[in-house]
């Protein structure tokens, strides 16, 4: 049984994503204890191997569509690498790519999958993964004992710097048959919508979640935002409903923000939301549920009802 760890790389054709470096750092730490090697699987991004010096080997598969992500092509390509590299552990993110490929690969390359991982430790020959489930309300500890496993790791769980290293890993081209006969054909990429307010540039953000209840109630937080001269930001359900424009969404699929103050009203603090705002200098959260995970990252919290608190605060700041 090998002790090698294989990281499934993510990139946009121009650069390798942070999550890949986070995983590489974690892989290096685990491998230094177990004596395994760290490798990366890179699909369609052959020019990017130079930034992957934290790995000793980079397996490169040239996808037919170049850099454009396509679940089926990436999955087949990764499977080709898994068969060749035969690692003990495969690491991916809980990103779109990770959600797509982890489950499907676990069937084709029979292995248990552990999702939403935030911690990985060695315990003798076993690995132990710690995951966040139920929207971050509970943690699960999972033992990984068998010859193969796949872990999908939440972004931000490990430092990216530990996986950043220039260098010249050994590059191995893997030929995978059938990539051009995929039943999935990419038709184009949409770049982020940059219209409207740029919440990433704001010093203060007043952010609102599903606790607001309805579009008509946004007025309450809008008045507070006006008093602070801050734009409104939101969790995903608010922009999905069309109550605020998509570019104002904070989180995994929205924007990453780092304001001097982030005021969260009626936001539970799901991992996908925290991913976009946990680095704010000051976080103040208002949530009627004292166990809401948002309080784990907030500096100050209150279980006051937002409909009581927001108008009071607007008034105190307004004059």
């Amino acid at each position: 049984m090998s002790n090698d760890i294989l990281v499934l790389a993510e990139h946009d054709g121009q650069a390798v994503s942070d999550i890949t470096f986070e995983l590489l750092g974690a892989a290096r730490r685990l491998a230094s204890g177990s004596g395994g090697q760290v490798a990366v699987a890179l699909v369609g991004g052959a020019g990017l191997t130079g930034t992957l010096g934290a790995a000793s080997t980079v397996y490169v598969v040239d996808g037919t569509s170049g850099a454009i992500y396509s679940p089926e092509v990436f999955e087949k390509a990764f499977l080709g690498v898994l068969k060749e590299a035969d690692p003990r552990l495969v690491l991916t993110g809980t990103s779109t790519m990770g959600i797509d490929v982890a489950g499907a690969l676990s069937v084709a390359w029979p292995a248990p999958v552990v999702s939403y991982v935030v911690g990985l430790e060695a315990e003798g020959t076993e690995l132990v993964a710690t995951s966040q489930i139920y929207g971050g309300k509970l943690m699960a500890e999972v033992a990984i004992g068998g010859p193969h496993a796949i872990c999908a790791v939440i972004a931000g769980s490990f430092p990216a710097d530990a996986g950043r290293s220039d260098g010249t890993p050994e590059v191995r081209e893997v030929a995978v048959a059938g990539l051009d006969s995929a039943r999935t054909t990419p038709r184009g990429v949409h770049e982020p919508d940059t219209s409207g307010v740029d919440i990433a540039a704001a010093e203060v953000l007043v952010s609102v979640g599903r606790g607001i209840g309805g579009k008509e109630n946004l007025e309450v937080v809008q008045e507070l935002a006006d008093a602070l001269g801050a734009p409104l930001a939101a969790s995903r359900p608010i922009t999905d409903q069309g109550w605020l424009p998509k570019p104002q969404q904070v989180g995994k699929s929205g924007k990453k923000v780092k304001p001097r103050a982030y005021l969260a009203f009626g936001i539970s603090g799901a991992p996908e939301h925290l991913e976009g705002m946990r680095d704010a200098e000051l976080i103040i959260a208002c949530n009627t549920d004292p166990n809401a995970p948002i309080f784990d990252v907030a500096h100050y919290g209150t279980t006051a009802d937002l409909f009581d608190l927001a108008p009071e605060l607007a008034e105190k700041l307004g004059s």
Partner: protein
Amino acid sequence: MRILVLMRQLPDLVEELEISSEGTDIDRELVKFVMNEFDDQALEEALLLKESSGAEVVVVALDEPDVDQALYTAIAKGADRAVKLTGVSNERWMSTHERAAILAPYVEESAADLVLTGVQAADDLDGQLAGVLAGLLGLPHAAVVVGVELKDSTVLVTQELGGGRSVDEEIDLPAVLGLQAARQAPRYAPISKIRQVTQAGGIEEVAAHTPPEASATAISLRRLYVPERSGHAEMLEGTPGEVAERIAEILRSRGLVKG
């Protein structure tokens, strides 16, 4: 054109979750179950496709607590049929791989053209259903889907890649999609309609296939626990007015209040 929507029940996360005495599951007696919110998005997308193309929409769920309510609600919203797969234990946490193994033979027999489900569920610790199910069935798939358009023998989907980027791709049918968000917010069914549908009955019960033992993909859960609140916020106590005053002070002391 037949669209299957795979739905499931989940503990309502607004309520407190207690851990069972064995330490590896939640205490299910105290929990209120609701439909997975992402499955509700999948249902909405299916209903939109039905409206534009006349597809038949069949909702499918395993027998789980309060699932009848969810299935009748789906019919009240416009689903053509509701199927409940019975005979599997519904009193414990079930892994994604086990769910997928139970659903796969049904999906295969149902001759579905398109299978929609939620992108994830709050307790799918061993991976997300769409990918695992597609793996078992050998079908193409995509997750984090935010738009679906039916063509003749393909489906055009928009998949979010994160950070505001997305990709369009055309996928041959049959395919399995994990929905993040429907093109519009899920509709509501009037209570009176749900009541009427419930009285009429009409959930089809089908005996579920027993899944094969799949030890190679089984995870070994050691324990569940409430996270230690190491970095917990300093809680501001008092009336809303007093809390507001404290927050205003904190913001002022950092020079974040204009004027």
